[in-house]
C-alpha cells in the first residue's frame, strides 16, 4: 500500500476529486447549503430590494382646510396628481394630529383660514406643515417634496398669468448614469455585493464547522489528504455554488427590479469570481477559529455582513464618514465590490474603476488564503 502523502501528483488529484465529489453529494442531499446559496439571496433581495428605498412615494398626508378656496382646491389637485403623496382630508386640525400620532399619516398640511386672502396679497404661502420627525429620513423627504409640489403649483399658477412671473430662471436638472433617479437602481447592485459577502462566508464557515461537529474532520485528518487538498476540496464546490447564487441575484436585479445592465457579463463574472474567493476565504478563516456551527454563523454575520452593510458605501456614503472609519472601509472587500457592481450595472465596463478595485479584491483573496494555509494544521485543539 503506497500512499501519496505529499502535495501534487496523481494521488493528490484523486483525493481532491474524491473530496469534491463527496462535497457535491452532500450539497445535493442537504438542503441547508442550497438554501444559503439560493433562498437567502432571493429572500434578502426581495426584502431589501422592495423595503429599502430612499424614495418616498405615496406618502400619506393629512390635509386640513379651515376654509375652502379655489386656491387651496387647486393646490390639493396638484397634491393628488403628485406621485409622492396620497392626501386624505381631515375635518379639523385635532383629528389630523391624532392621525399623525397613530402614524396613519406622515405629515399634515394645514390651510389656515386666511390662505385665500394671503396668497393674493403677499404671496407668502401661509400653509402650515407638520411633519412626523420620528423617521428623520422620511421627514426630510416629505418636507422637500412638499416644497417641490408647492413650487410647481406656484409656477403653474404664475404661468396662467394671474400674476407676473416670479421665477425668471427655470432649473432643469439632468442626472447622469441613473436618469430615472431611482434609488433602487443604485441600491440593488450594492445589495448584491453585501448579500454575496454573507453567503460566501456562511457557506464555508458553516460546512467546515459542521465537519468538526460531526467528527468527520477528525477522520479526514487521519488520511493522507493534506490540509491544502482538504481546503481545495471545500473551496471548489462552494465556489460553484456561490457563483450560481450570484447569477440568480444578478438575474433578479435585472429582470425583477429592472436595474439596467450596461457592462459586460465577462467583467461581471471575473470580478464576481475574485470577490467570491475573498468571501469564501473569509468563511474558511472563520471556520479555523470556530468549530461550532452556531458560533461560526454568528461570527460570519458580525464580521462580514454588518461591516459590509454599513461601511461598504452601499447605502451610507463613505465620504461623509469620519476619517478613521473611512480608513476601515478600505479593509472591507465588499466596499470594492459595491463600487464594481454599481459601475458595471449602471455605467458599463469602465477600466479606471474596474481594474484598481479588482486588484484590491485579488489581493484580499491571496492574503486570506495565505493566512489560512499558514494557520491551518491537521490538528485538533
Amino acid at each position, binding site marked *: 500500500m503506497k*500512499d501519496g502523502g505529499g502535495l501534487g501528483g496523481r494521488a493528490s488529484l484523486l483525493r481532491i476529486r474524491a473530496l469534491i465529489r463527496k462535497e457535491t453529494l452532500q450539497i445535493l442531499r442537504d438542503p441547508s447549503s442550497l438554501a444559503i446559496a439560493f433562498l437567502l439571496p432571493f429572500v434578502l433581495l426581495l426584502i431589501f430590494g422592495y423595503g429599502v428605498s430612499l424614495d418616498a412615494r405615496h406618502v400619506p398626508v393629512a390635509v386640513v382646510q379651515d376654509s375652502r378656496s379655489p386656491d387651496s382646491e387647486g393646490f390639493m389637485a396638484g397634491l393628488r396628481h403628485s406621485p409622492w403623496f396620497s392626501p386624505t382630508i381631515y375635518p379639523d386640525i385635532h383629528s389630523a394630529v391624532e392621525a399623525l400620532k397613530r402614524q396613519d399619516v406622515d405629515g399634515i398640511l394645514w390651510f389656515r383660514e386666511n390662505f385665500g386672502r394671503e396668497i393674493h396679497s403677499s404671496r407668502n404661502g401661509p400653509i402650515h406643515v407638520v411633519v412626523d420627525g420620528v423617521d428623520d429620513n422620511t421627514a426630510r423627504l416629505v418636507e422637500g417634496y412638499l416644497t417641490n409640489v408647492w413650487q410647481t403649483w406656484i409656477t403653474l399658477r404664475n404661468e396662467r398669468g394671474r400674476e407676473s412671473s416670479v421665477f425668471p430662471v427655470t432649473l432643469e436638472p439632468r442626472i447622469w448614469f441613473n436618469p430615472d433617479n431611482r434609488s433602487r437602481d443604485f441600491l440593488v447592485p450594492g445589495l448584491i455585493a453585501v448579500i454575496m459577502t454573507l453567503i460566501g462566508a456562511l457557506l464555508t464557515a458553516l460546512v467546515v464547522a459542521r465537519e468538526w461537529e460531526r467528527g468527520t474532520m477528525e477522520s479526514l485528518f*487521519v488520511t493522507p489528504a493534506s490540509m491544502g487538498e482538504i481546503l481545495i476540496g471545500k473551496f471548489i464546490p462552494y465556489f460553484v455554488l456561490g457563483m450560481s447564487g450570484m447569477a440568480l441575484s444578478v438575474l433578479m436585479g435585472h429582470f425583477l427590479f429592472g436595474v439596467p445592465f450596461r457592462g459586460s457579463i465577462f467583467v461581471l463574472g471575473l470580478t464576481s469570481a475574485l470577490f467570491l474567493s475573498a468571501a469564501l476565504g473569509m468563511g474558511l478563516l472563520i471556520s479555523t477559529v470556530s468549530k461550532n456551527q452556531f458560533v461560526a454563523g454568528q461570527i460570519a454575520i458580525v464580521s462580514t455582513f454588518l461591516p459590509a452593510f454599513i461601511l461598504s458605501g452601499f447605502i451610507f456614503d463613505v465620504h461623509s464618514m469620519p476619517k478613521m472609519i473611512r480608513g476601515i472601509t478600505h479593509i472591507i472587500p465588499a466596499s470594492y465590490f459595491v463600487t464594481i457592481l454599481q459601475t458595471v450595472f449602471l455605467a458599463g465596463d469602465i477600466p479606471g474603476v474596474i481594474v484598481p478595485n479588482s486588484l484590491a479584491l485579488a489581493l484580499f483573496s491571496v492574503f486570506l488564503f495565505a493566512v489560512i494555509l499558514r494557520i491551518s494544521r491537521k490538528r485538533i485543539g
Partner: protein
Amino acid sequence: MAGDRESSGNVISVRDLVRTFPSPRGTVTALEGVSFEIRKGTVTGLIGPDGAGKTTLLRILAGLILRDSGTVNVMGYDPSADPLPVQGSLGYMPQKFGLYEDLTVMENLDLYADLHAVPPSGRKDLYAPLLSMTGLGPFLGRLAGKLSGGMKQKLGVACSLLHRPPLLLFDEPTVGVDPVSRRELWEILHTLVRESGATLFVSTSYLDEAERCDDILILLDGRILGAGSPADFYTEVRGHAFELESAGQSPRSVEPGISVLPGVVDTVLTGSRVRILMEDRSPPVLPEEFEHFPLHPVAPRFEDAFMDRLRRTRGGDGKTRLPRQLHRKTGRSGQGEEESAILVENLVRDFGTFRAVNDLSFEVKRGEVFGLLGANGAGKTTTFRMLAGLLPPTGGTLRVAGQDVRKSPSKARQNMGYMAQKFSLYGQLTVYQNLRFYGSAYGLSGKSRTDRIQEVLEFFELVSYRDVSSGILPLGFRQRLALAVSLMHDPEILLLDEPTSGVDPAARREFWRIINGLATEGVSVLVTTHFMEEADYCDRLVIMAQGSLLATGAPSEIKERARTPQLPSPSLEDAFVSLLSRAGPLQETGK
C-alpha cells in the same frame, strides 16, 4: 508497509508522555507521565472511565494533537513531527465515527478508498471480505445516517481498514452499541488482527471488555493504573472474591454492613447475593447476625482487579461508608392503597411513522429498584420522558404514585425526582446555589429549604464542596449533586436516566450505595443503564429492544431463561444476547 521499518517487536512505544490543556480554571492535566509499549500483532485494550485521557492519548498517537513532553514512537515515526507517514498507514476511528451521514454506505467506502489512494481496480476484492464480515452487503445504497448504531460502527471500522493499515487505533468503537453488535464487533476486530497481522489499540469504558484483549492498559486520571494481560490481572485477585447468600433478608440491607468489615475492598449486589472482594485470600469475618449466611468463593472478575488496584493507588480511601439517614417526611405513605409506584400499561409512542415505544407494560412496586435495560435507541429515554410528563404518549396508561401522568402531570411530578441523562445543573452556580434554586423551584422556602439543603449536603458528602461552582466538580460529585437536586423535594419515586454513564467504577459503587440506601427507606427507583452488571443490582428489570419489551423479571429469572447445557451459569449479558437472537415472538407481557 510502513510497519516493516520496525525492527523491534513494539509498534508503539511511549515514554513519560505529558499533555495538559489550558482551561478557564487553570491547567488540566490530561496525561501525566504515561509510559507503555504495544507489541506487534496484538489487541491491546485501553480501559478507563470518561475523562481518563483515553481520547487524548489516541489523538497524540495519530498525530492530531501535540504533546507537552515525553517521547512517542509510532511505527518508527514521531507522530507530532512526521504525521503524514504515520497517518498514511494508520486505521483510525474516532469516537464520533467519521462517517458522512448523508452519503450512502458505498459512497463512504469509496471516499475513504479514494483518500487512501486505493486503486479502483482492486476495490471489489477489497470490499468483498469487509462487507461479508460486517454484514453491510445488503445496505450498500443506504445512507449512513439511517443505519443502526451497531451498523454505523461496523461501517466506521470498514472505512478505516480499506488501505490495509498495519496499525489500528479505535476510540471506543463499542460505546452505545447493543450487546449483540458489541460481540460481533469484537469478533470482527479479532478476525482482522488474526488474518492481517495488524496491531489493534482500542479504547473502551466497559471493564468487561478487557478480557477480550491480549493486553490491557488501565488509564485513570491521566495515569496508567495497570498494564498486563488479563491473566495477570486475574491472578492478582484470584481467591479474593466471595459471594454471600442473604437467605431471606434483602441483600440491599445486608450489603452496607458487609462493606465496612475489615479487609473488605469492595461489595456489590448480584441478584439475591452480595459479592465481596477481599484484600487477600482470607474470607470476611462476618458479624453475628450474618454468620449463618452461606459464603461461597467465586471466580474473580476484571472489575475486581480494577477495584483492588484502585484501592492500592488511592489508599484506603477507595470506599465510603455512607448509609447515614436522609430524613424523609413521616406518614407520607398516606395515599398508600396504591401498591405500585409506577404502572405502565400498553404504552405507545410514535414519532411520525417511527414507533419508538411499542406496547410497553411494566409495574414498579414501592421501595423497589427497577431497571430499564437496553441499547441506545431501544426507547428507554423516550419512556422516561413520558413518565416524567415531558412527552405525551401516543397511547396507553401511565400512573406514577397513583396519579395519572397524562391527566395531572404536575401532581405526578410532585412525588417524582428526575435525573436527566445529561445532568441539568447550572455550571456557574455553586453547589449550594443549585440546591437552593431547585429547592425553590419545587416550592421549598425559608427554614424548611435551609434545613433540607444542609441535610442533603451532609448525606451526599458535599459539605466541603458547598461553595464550589458545580461546573468544575469532578464528574462523580457532579452526578451526586444532580441526584441531590432531584431529591430536594423528598420524592417517593426517583427516575434516573443513565445516571452512571461515564463515571469510574469506584464512583459508580458509591452512587449505587446511595440508591440502595434510598430504596431501603422506601423510595422507589426506576433506573436505566447500559451497564449489564448494574442491572444485577436491581430487584427486577425490563429489557427493551427497538421499543418493545423483550423480557421482564428478577435478574436471576432472566438469567435462568438463558441457561443451556453449554452455558450453565449465564451472565445477564449472555441472557440479553440470547434473548435478542431468539427474538422471534418478541413480546412477553410484564405482570
